[in-house]
């Protein structure tokens, strides 16, 4: 066995033993639930289960939830499995990645089915059947909207892509999709990101404060914004060679963009660290019970 493998194996065995010891003594990672009766119909109670803080575990209607407790431990395993990638590609990471791809694709399918295909397509085409089954809240007397046969037909054509022959059939709904996207984006981008942005940039270069005194900082700010936008646009204007005056202005544009990208880098770092902090907080708080920032286990 390689020295490195031996060290990691020893560390993992020791860590596992420590975890088991902690789980046996402290009981970390346990989740408690409360059964809530939301309705009672013909003597049958409709019960839902809501998670409660472990500090309420001794209350009458609160009990330990094994599925959720196992869930917390599986969550921790998933978190550590993905994190193991920092040590290099490994089977545990690949396993977690495979599970993620499968669950993710199916979850999207399920969401699309219930939230759009049932809610809008089936509701419009077979309202009676939907009212008696999945959508009892539908208004009575809703008539079939035959215009929805068009998206139904296009959906079938789109799924034809999975068939071994006749892939061209899927081009028709795809063309509809692409055409619609082009149509609404053309208008909206020109309105909000072109004309409105120009409008936002038309601002006074000499600014006066409310008491009619000269506002030097406000003036500098506006001059910098207007000239900055112009310099940036000159840089992106490639129809004219970047030489002479244009070259000088484009160079100013490069400087401005460098400052912009520096700011973006700073914000990106901030975001990524926040995501890591969230995962570590899950491990330390929900799983290991090393910290209790939200006082979920007060008095335990």
């Amino acid at each position: 066995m390689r020295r490195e493998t031996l060290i990691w194996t020893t560390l993992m065995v020791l860590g596992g033993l420590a975890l088991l010891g902690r789980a046996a003594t402290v009981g970390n990672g346990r989740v408690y639930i409360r059964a809530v009766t939301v309705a009672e119909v013909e003597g049958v109670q409709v019960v839902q289960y809501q998670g409660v803080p472990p500090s309420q575990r001794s209350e009458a209607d609160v009990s330990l939830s094994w599925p959720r407790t196992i869930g917390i431990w599986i969550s921790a395993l998933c978190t550590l499995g993905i994190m193991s990638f920092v040590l290099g590609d490994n089977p545990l990471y690949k396993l977690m990645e495979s599970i993620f791809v499968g669950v993710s694709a199916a979850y999207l399918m399920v969401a699309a089915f219930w939230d759009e295909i049932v809610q809008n397509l089936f509701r419009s085409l077979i309202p009676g059947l939907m009212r008696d089954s999945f959508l009892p809240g539908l208004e009575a007397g809703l008539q079939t909207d035959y215009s929805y046969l068009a998206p139904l037909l296009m959906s079938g054509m789109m799924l034809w892509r999975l068939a071994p022959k006749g892939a061209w059939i899927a081009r028709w709904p795809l063309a509809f999709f692409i055409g619609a996207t082009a149509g609404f984006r053309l208008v909206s981008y020109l309105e909000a990101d072109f004309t409105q942005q120009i409008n936002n940039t038309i601002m006074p270069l000499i600014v006066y404060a409310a008491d009619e005194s000269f506002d030097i900082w406000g003036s500098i700010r506006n001059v910098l914004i207007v000239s900055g936008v112009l310099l940036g646009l000159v840089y992106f204007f490639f129809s004219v060679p970047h030489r002479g005056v244009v070259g000088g202005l484009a160079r100013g544009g490069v400087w401005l963009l460098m400052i912009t990208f520096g700011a973006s880098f700073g914000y990106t770092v901030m975001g990524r660290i926040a995501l890591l902090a969230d995962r570590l907080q899950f491990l330390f708080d929900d799983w290991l019970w090393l910290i209790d920032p939200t006082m979920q286990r007060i008095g335990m």
Partner: protein
Amino acid sequence: MYEFFKTLDRRWIFLLMLIAVGLPILRGWQFPERPSPMVQSVFDAIESLPEGSQVWMAYDYDPGSQGELHPMALAFTRHCALKKLKMYYMTLWPQGPPMIQKNVDVLRNEFPDLQYGVDYVNLGYRPGYEGPIKLAVTDLRKTIAADVDGKSLNDLPMTKGLKNIQNVDLIINVSAGYPGTKEWVLYAATPYNISSVAGCTGVQAPYLYPYVPQQLNGLLGAIKGAAEYEFLLLEAYPQLRENPEAQEALRRMGPQLLAHLVLIALIVIGNVIYFVGRRRGDV
């Protein structure tokens, strides 16, 4: 020393980052905040709304960015609940409904006086990227006919008279990318002149500044924006000080501080090695 850093295994850097983020969480380091004008404008946009105003809570994010966005989403919810505003939740992300559910749980547990269907409603997820926005601004029922429980919009007091969202008082968008703040600005806020504020990830924030303040009243950029917002909320509503869950973003600023400092140190050391190497002819 030069040789040590030049050949440093990157796993040491990973470990350093892990400690920089993990240690403040374990120690519970927390710092006071100084709200920036941008965050103040977001706070003011909500604070200035009269009781009963309608706010469209467009929560477009998933677990991949919940570390950045969940604290600000919950802060928006608490602020609106304290102001007794009418909240309409929806998401354009398939993974969004569980995120909205956490906000609904906060309303149920911390504000039991608020009634579902009267004070807040959960309209769930709608596929179609920007498509549902285009329909919501013209005819809401063409994209959303019922809430998440299947109740018709005509049977809920809050939505009974709501034809579209053109007349809502404010759109509050929490966004992790596409579709998100940009789409709400493009298809709702700009063409229909609807007031809106947003909270977004660090990656997105710089791209959204050109919309402020004409097309977007204000913007919370990542966890720092959320922390400043929570600080303002605690100042305005001291009763929240007793609720540790309302201070999530403030707690996260401990790891941010140490990790930022470590990153700056890494850049400086990396550059020193580079220049020393260049002088020695190694680069």
